[in-house]
């Protein structure tokens, strides 16, 4: 009887239940450990208090200045890396020789953890937003340029030859052959660039900054205001998840 019912259950709902159960157990363990356990409040604040703080932060709107700083940095950095990355990538991709010269160069630099150069950026550009913008633009430049080269460089020869022999002009060629063929790869590069720009900007705010969401979290950690810090972390994670989901949705839209 029970076996029959278990089989009748959709496997999918069962998986969802397991996931839900995992979350519930985690929250419950957190609550119990914080309420009755011997865990210090400095390490693990009570989830109820974190929730109140979270609501308080949202209601008071005190996150707005920090959010504005972070989002401005992100927007400027992403605009710089997108325009530079796509134009560089496009021009490199026009010649197989240039691809051979530059592509390994970009790929090689991409494999270095560029966050290492953060101290240099702070030295050049100071503690303010400029160093975050410069670092975010540098880090996100590489996935964008590499994917642009891959996208425009690997357009099927049959398509380009056919379009040429039918008398396509350069502009028509770009608009109707190259762009549609390259767009999915370029968009994937833009999405990757956006994600790493976001990460590196929050990261550099955490390490050395004067304002921004990462700075706020560190500030709260240094003041040992743990419940508030957890609330801010949840807030930043939610913002990041929202931005990434939005970019993925835009990418999926652009692919069609």
């Amino acid at each position, binding site marked *: 009887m029970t076996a029959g019912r278990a089989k009748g259950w959709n*496997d*999918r709902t*069962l*998986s969802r239940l*397991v*996931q839900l159960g*995992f979350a519930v157990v985690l929250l419950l363990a957190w609550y119990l450990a914080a309420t009755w356990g011997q865990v210090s409040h*400095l*390490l693990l604040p009570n989830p109820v208090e974190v929730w109140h703080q979270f609501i308080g932060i949202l209601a008071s709107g005190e996150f707005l200045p920090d959010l504005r700083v972070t989002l401005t940095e992100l927007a400027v950095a992403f605009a710089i890396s997108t325009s530079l990355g796509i134009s560089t990538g496009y021009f490199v991709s026009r010649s197989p*020789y240039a691809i*051979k*010269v*530059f592509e*390994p*160069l970009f790929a*090689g630099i991409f*494999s*270095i*953890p560029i*966050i*290492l*150069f*953060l*101290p*240099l950026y*702070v*030295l*050049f550009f100071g503690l303010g937003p400029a160093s975050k913008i410069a670092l975010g633009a540098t880090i996100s430049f590489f996935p964008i340029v590499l994917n642009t080269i891959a996208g425009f460089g690997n357009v099927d020869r049959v398509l380009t030859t056919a379009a040429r022999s039918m008398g396509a002009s350069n502009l028509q060629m770009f608009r109707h052959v190259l762009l549609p063929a390259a767009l999915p790869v370029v968009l994937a590069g833009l999405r990757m660039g956006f994600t790493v720009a*976001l*990460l590196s900007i*929050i*990261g550099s705010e*955490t*390490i*050395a900054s004067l304002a921004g969401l*990462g700075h706020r*979290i*560190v500030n*709260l*950690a240094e003041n040992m205001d743990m419940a508030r*810090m957890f609330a801010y*972390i949840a807030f*930043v*994670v939610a913002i*990041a*998840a929202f931005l*990434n989901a939005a970019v993925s949705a835009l990418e999926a839209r652009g692919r069609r």
Partner: protein
Amino acid sequence: MTTLAPAVTAPKPLTLRVRRWFLRHPAAARLGVVVILFVIWEIAARFFVDPNFLSPPSRVIVSIDDVLATQGVPQALRVTFYELAVSFVLAVVLGVILGLSIGLGRFAHRSFMPIILLLYGTPQITILPIFVLLFGIGPASKIAFGVSHGVFPVTILVAAGVQNIKPIYLVSARSMGASRWHILRHVIFPHMIPSFFTSMRLAMTGVLLGVLLAELYVSTAGIGYFTSVFTQDFDPTKLIGLVSILAAMAVVLNEVVRRAELHYGRWRS
């Protein structure tokens, strides 16, 4: 004959020959680009930029000895390398265990994979302060943060590698009477090897990122301590030297895993 020979090998203009040579050797042209960049850097640093902020590459290279002779720097490099090694090993071991246990069961895969992907997708840098509070400002927090960056790609790739085995291999092995261990040893492990080495490469990228982030955030003995000291002293020569040493270390480590990936991923194709 002798009069004809010079006509045949009539010397082409030098510029054309140089161009031809570069066209045949893109690697040389690449090297040329790098050299030009270094020359621009050198000229900019010598004549245009405030020496408090940028120092020419020639001086940086000469000063690398100086950096290594600075009290505590070799020790700091050793500490950082130790953190990288320990967190890399931990990330790979934990990731393989998690990946196998998630990948081997269809139900486990469907239930827990979204959780892993969700965790992998969250910006872990936001919880760096928590790592420091939990593990202190010593190497432990760097190792833990490195592991937290490295473990998820390994888990995901190993699980995917296990899932991608053609069911026919498993069925035929089972029908020939292979035990659970035999299947693991002779079917699943060999098939995991390519994705395993790819995952090691991604783990290395993640571990480098995590450890270096944590080092830069707060450090008492590792490299992060010296980068902040050199920054506060406005000593770009030493700072660039130190960062170059670290970058070289990262490149070598990445290259080692990449070579391993190429080497062990070959057998199937």
